[in-house]
């Protein structure tokens, strides 16, 4: 007998240790919290009270049906209340339903023939109706919102418990009872409640309507049924009144449970669980938001971070959060560390109506939110760095284009004109007339061929700076030309639509391929080269393969380092496979835009 619990504890310990993410650990730690123990005590006491009531059935044959019915409805309410309390410790609904269960239990005690119990029971005879009204108005946040609702709930308690007390006193002094007045005012309270619920249902959006529908709809039926039943059944079957009312009341927790299934009451955790989670560490960005969503049961909750530099709230990616007008149900609670604003929590005020609960959660998580704020700042500066690298590389391509154009429009044209002039001089000299003339002709033609050689050199230079086909026809035409002029057999496979490639991508792709094929011929002693250009979704794929000596690696020369720099500036990727004596295969991936 001893060993079983010990084993279980051991297993539980292992489970806690084994969790890598930390989430299970804090859920488990929470499970042995004080609230847990209190709820267990409530359940045990409730079960005991019910059993005592049931035990009284044989000695009370006249009220046996009522005793059993009260006991069952009591248990239903108690079970639902405890469940709601456990799922949402910070929400008032759970305690409210448990309170309703207690009121039900007390109200039903008059079915036992103990004098003192009869008086106590009389004080609580109609309290359950007031609790029902309270519950319906408070759902789902657990707090009564709006002046009308508050008034109706207070009126409900006055009409029910207040007039019950008055009735007990009047009965004690032998005065006439106030049952008729109570019934009339009760009708007013119930009808008003039905109207409020109906209005809420029609005014809300779809998601919330799904949550509200079961309880509100049933609530309308129940509050109307509870007040109509006595009037309809008073003549025909007065004994049924109590049963009908009990059945209607029993249905409320069931409707509530359906609301839970629709998402109104997802499992949440107490604030201390958040503290425990913080101690686990290693929390990443979505974790704080996720933890808060779980804790407050609000799927739409978001965490924003304060950028002191820009004086705006930003999201995790560093993007400015557009200030939304505080929608009717959106609310924001600032989060501070030592008085310094670090962020804010945006939440749905229908689900968590008390800003203090959100603020407390924010206090617990303030350090984590501050850390996430710093990460967001780093993300932004990293993005800025990447953009600046890209701008630098684009500027470099722009410079190359400009230099090539200047040489093309200026020097190349001038060299053609100079060569024409030299040739013209040769043409002017009277051919073969004398030795001087022949010398001039030879010298002028020599000059012309010298200028032609310089022009050829310039053509190569211009081509290396920015090849004409790249500008005129694009990547594939330029690479084709590159491959055409390679000193070893080279194959090109390229079948892509270039129209959507950014100019930075086109230029980078060209110069990367040019560097790689040059490496293949010059350093890898390749006997053949193969270039492939393709596209996969938004990525441009380049592969350059050779059958050379292999063993290529970044850092061995400037070549591959330059390739990596160019590619990384566009946030692309490079993969080098180059076993010794096994050839080299370099794959490059670039974003198309």
């Amino acid at each position, binding site marked *: 007998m001893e060993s079983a619990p010990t084993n279980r504890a051991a297993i539980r310990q292992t489970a806690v240790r084994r969790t890598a993410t930390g989430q299970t650990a804090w859920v488990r730690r929470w499970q042995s919290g004080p609230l847990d123990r209190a709820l267990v005590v409530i359940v045990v006491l409730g079960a005991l009270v019910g059993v005592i009531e049931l035990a009284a059935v044989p000695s009370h044959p006249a009220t046996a049906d009522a005793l059993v019915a009260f006991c069952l409805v009591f248990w239903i309410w108690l079970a639902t209340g405890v469940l709601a309390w456990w799922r949402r410790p910070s929400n008032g609904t759970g305690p409210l339903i448990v309170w309703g269960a207690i009121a039900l239990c007390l109200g039903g005690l008059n079915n036992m023939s103990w004098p003192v119990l009869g008086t106590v029971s009389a004080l609580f005879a109609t309290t359950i109706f007031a609790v029902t009204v309270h519950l319906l108005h408070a759902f789902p946040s657990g707090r009564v919102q709006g002046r009308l609702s508050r008034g109706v709930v207070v009126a409900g308690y006055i009409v029910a418990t207040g007039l019950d007390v008055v009735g007990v006193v009047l009965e004690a002094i032998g005065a006439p009872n106030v049952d008729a007045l109570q019934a009339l005012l009760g009708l007013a309270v119930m009808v008003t409640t039905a109207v409020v619920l109906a209005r809420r249902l029609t005014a809300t959006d779809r998601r919330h309507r799904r949550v509200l529908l079961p309880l509100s709809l049933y609530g309308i039926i129940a509050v109307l049924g509870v007040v109509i039943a006595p009037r309809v059944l008073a003549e025909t079957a007065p004994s049924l009144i109590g049963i009908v009312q009990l059945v209607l009341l029993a249905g409320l927790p069931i409707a509530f449970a359906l609301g839970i299934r629709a998402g109104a009451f997802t499992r949440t955790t107490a604030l201390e669980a958040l503290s425990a989670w913080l101690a686990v560490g290693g929390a990443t960005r979505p974790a704080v938001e996720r933890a808060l969503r779980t804790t407050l049961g609000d799927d739409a909750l978001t965490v924003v971070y304060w950028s002191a530099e820009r004086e705006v709230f930003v999201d995790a990616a560093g993007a400015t959060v557009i200030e939304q007008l505080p929608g009717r149900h959106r609310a924001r609670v600032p989060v501070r560390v030592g008085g310094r604003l670090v962020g804010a929590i945006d939440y749905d005020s229908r689900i968590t109506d008390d800003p203090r609960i959100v603020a407390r959660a924010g206090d617990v998580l303030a350090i984590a939110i501050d850390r996430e704020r710093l990460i967001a700042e780093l993300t932004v500066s990293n993005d800025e760095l990447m953009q600046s690298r890209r701008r630098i590389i684009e500027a470099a391509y722009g410079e190359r284009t400009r230099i090539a154009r200047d040489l093309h429009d200026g020097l190349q*044209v001038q060299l053609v004109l100079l060569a*024409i002039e030299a040739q013209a001089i040769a*043409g002017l000299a009277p051919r073969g007339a004398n030795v001087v003339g022949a010398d001039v002709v030879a010298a002028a033609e020599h000059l012309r061929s010298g200028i032609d050689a310089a*022009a050829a050199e310039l053509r190569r230079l211009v081509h290396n700076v920015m090849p*004409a086909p790249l500008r*005129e026809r694009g990547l594939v*035409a330029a690479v*084709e030309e590159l491959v055409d002029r390679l000193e070893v057999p080279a194959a090109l496979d390229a079948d892509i639509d270039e129209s959507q490639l950014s100019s930075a991508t086109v230029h980078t792709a060209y110069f990367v391929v040019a560097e790689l094929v040059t490496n293949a011929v010059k350093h890898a002693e390749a006997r053949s080269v193969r270039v492939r250009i393709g596209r996969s979704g938004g990525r441009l794929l380049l592969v350059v393969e050779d059958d050379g000596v292999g063993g290529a690696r970044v850092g061995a020369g400037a070549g591959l380092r330059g390739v990596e720099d160019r590619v990384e500036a566009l946030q692309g990727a490079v993969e080098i496979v180059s076993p010794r004596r096994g050839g080299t295969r370099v794959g490059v991936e670039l974003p198309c835009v």
Partner: protein
Amino acid sequence: MRVIIAEDEALLREGLIHVLENDGFEVVAAVGTASAWEEEIARLEPALAITDIRMPPTHTDEGLLAAVRMRRRYPEMGVVVLSQHVQRRYATELMGARPGGAGYLLKQRIADVRTFTVDLRRVAAGGTALDPEVVEVMVARAGRLDGAVGALTPRQLEVLALMAQGRSNAGIAASLVLTEKAVVQHTSRIYDALGLPLDADDHRRVLAVVRYLDVAGAPARPRGS
């Protein structure tokens, strides 16, 4: 001979006009854009039309595209494309499927006036003039990729290159200091080696050689006839 020129660089345009007029050509129009060139051709119907490749407005390949269009529209007219840079793709695009009447030369060739004007007259007469540099690239590439070209002797490669440039047997003989008979022997051996059908027509011979060189290394496609 009536000639129309398109060249956006004013100095070079003037230089070209000067060279041509000195050699007896009649420059009937000289313009700065490809579209103006096309309009003048339609209006004046010259024997020869010369254009730069890179011109306004895009400064890319509008001259080449216009040349291809004009060659298709005026089959009797010679079209010569000038450029700072030559490449295989442009050569084959300009030649198209129709033999003769086309030239593709580096601008620098203008200065070698004698050769240049001979090339222009040959194109105007329905012949071909491909720049030695682009032919060199094509022959070297084919030599690496195509076994038959790779197996030719150096002398045969020289003859092949001159054939691709559009030279006649007499022209080849003159530049290699050979007899015309020797050139004929070389050409027929080259034809045998490449499996090309013998053709008496010089223009079709150039086209066949250029297409053969162009598709070298691409075994899936049928070779030029």
